[in-house]
């Protein structure tokens, strides 16, 4: 994906390839500006003004196979919410503050199932709250977002996202604003729903600990590219790319005194280094790293990284 800026075109998402199967969870890890949110927005047909996109994306469900990049706005409206749904970080800004929770969920259901009767829509809305483990769903449906705690609001968001029966769920930092004990409950809920509904889950986060808990596979992004990908256990226990290694050493754990930050800062998209984007910060760099962008190489099996050392 390319975006126009005052200083020229930049590529927030660059040569990204990935796949998610039904019932599988892929963790997408990256820091601010890595392109992880842009990627999910592009896959939802929610492009920023002036953006150019090339490449292919297809969504295969029981009913049909769709080429997402060829969809018109009318068709996108059926796909968004109907087949691909999204849960955002901050439920308070994603929910309408002057509309009851139940009515907001009913709106989604009606948009995708216009033939249902009012009673059926209402019942489906309450069912989706129940599925998201909202206690007393009938009573909660009558409440406004401000009457709910942060954790319940996020459950209501999940209920809304799943109300029209999507096959693929994008969750963009859904627990970042929550307390740890609540975070754990939400992660467990998403995990349960994924298995029960055979949902494909794309879980976007900056937190490697969260990824370890929810994802089966993980893709790490840096400056717009996926620089490492593989089964979550392998990537976190034996990271191949020096950036992933640095990110792990930068992540605080309960073990004390093990913190080792990565020197320097993420490069500006407008002034990317000619070779590997991580080269200027990398301890292990060699002369050839600055010459060209490394291809994704596998270390055997399905674990791969964009690094010449692999």
């Amino acid at each position, binding site marked *: 994906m390319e975006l126009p800026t005052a200083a020229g075109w930049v590529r927030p998402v660059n040569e990204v390839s990935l796949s998610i199967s039904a019932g599988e969870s892929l963790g997408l890890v990256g820091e601010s500006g890595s392109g992880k949110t842009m990627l999910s927005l592009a896959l939802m047909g929610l492009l920023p003004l002036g953006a150019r996109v090339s490449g292919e994306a297809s969504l295969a469900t029981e009913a049909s196979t769709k080429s997402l990049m060829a969809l018109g706005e009318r068709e996108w409206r059926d796909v968004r919410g109907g087949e691909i749904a999204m849960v955002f970080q901050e439920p308070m800004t994603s929910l309408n503050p002057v509309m009851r929770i139940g009515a907001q969920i009913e709106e989604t259901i009606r948009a995708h199932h216009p033939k249902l009767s009012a009673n059926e829509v209402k019942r489906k809305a309450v069912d989706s709250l129940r599925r998201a483990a909202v206690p007393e769903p009938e009573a909660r449906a009558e409440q406004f977002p401000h009457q709910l705690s942060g954790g319940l609001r996020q459950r209501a968001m999940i209920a809304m996202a799943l109300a029209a029966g999507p096959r693929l769920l994008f969750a963009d930092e859904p627990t970042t604003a929550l307390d740890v*004990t609540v975070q754990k409950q939400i992660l467990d809920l998403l995990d349960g729903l994924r298995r029960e509904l055979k949902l494909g889950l794309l879980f976007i986060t*900056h937190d490697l600990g969260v990824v370890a808990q929810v994802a089966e596979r993980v893709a790490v992004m840096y400056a717009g590219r996926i620089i490492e990908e593989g089964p979550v256990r392998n990537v976190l226990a034996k990271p191949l790319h020096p950036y992933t290694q640095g990110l792990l050493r930068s992540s605080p754990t309960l073990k004390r005194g093990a913190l080792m930050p990565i020197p320097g800062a993420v490069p500006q998209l407008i002034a990317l280094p000619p070779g590997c984007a991580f080269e200027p910060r990398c301890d292990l760099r060699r002369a050839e790293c600055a010459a060209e962008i490394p291809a994704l190489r596998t270390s055997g099996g399905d674990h791969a990284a964009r690094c010449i050392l692999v």
Partner: protein
Amino acid sequence: METLLTVRELRKTYRRGGGVFSQGTGGARFTAVDNVSFSINRGETFAVVGESGCGKTTLARMLLRLIEPDGGEILFEGRNLLTLRGEALRSQRRQMQMVFQDPFASLNPRMRVSEIVAEPLAIHEPGLSETERLARTTAILGRVGLNEDAMRRYPHEFSGGQRQRIGIARALILQPKLIVADEPVSALDVSVGAQVLLLLQELQREFALAYIFISHSLPVVAQLATHIAVMRAGLFVETGPADKVLDQPQHDYTRELLSAVPELPGA
């Protein structure tokens, strides 16, 4: 070791409910901070960990008297801050500075970095010459990792991590003995947060600073704390040396918080 700050039975209650139109009649009282006591030595880090609404920010702000406590004592080098007035309070206050969570909201967008960082000097050392002020500002900015070029620029030109460094420079310029840091890395990216945590650690060793470190995150706190207090509903449910609280938690709530921390395989 020398005790720097002692807090005894600090308390703050608010009226619950009410709202704009209720004229403040009736309503139950709600205790934000409930008879909290602790003390901290020079060069140590006392961490307060708890979830949203537990009272940790109210506690932090009371220590600097940004919120007036309802009762208790705050003894800084033996003097009770709550009974000090005017000049005496001001001269104590310069010994304790704050670093805030949000590096975007805590810096005035219309001031240049040099003005932001030098502002405490204008208040507490008004007699300082322009040259001296400039020298102190440059020195402290250099110490937190920002070059001279940063002085003329405005906050919006910096990244989150750099802004947090500006906030730290502002807190350090008066050479305080105590820094109260309220979630200083929770708005930052992982790798940037790690850089800031290490900077705080280095500055602590260099200037024998004491930190009161407020955070919701046990892993973050584990990096710096010498002592940890776990706070829930206004109370310290468990306090002790950091190793003890992390390795042999006594209270169920501490155990719950520890078990909710997502673990990294191999860590």
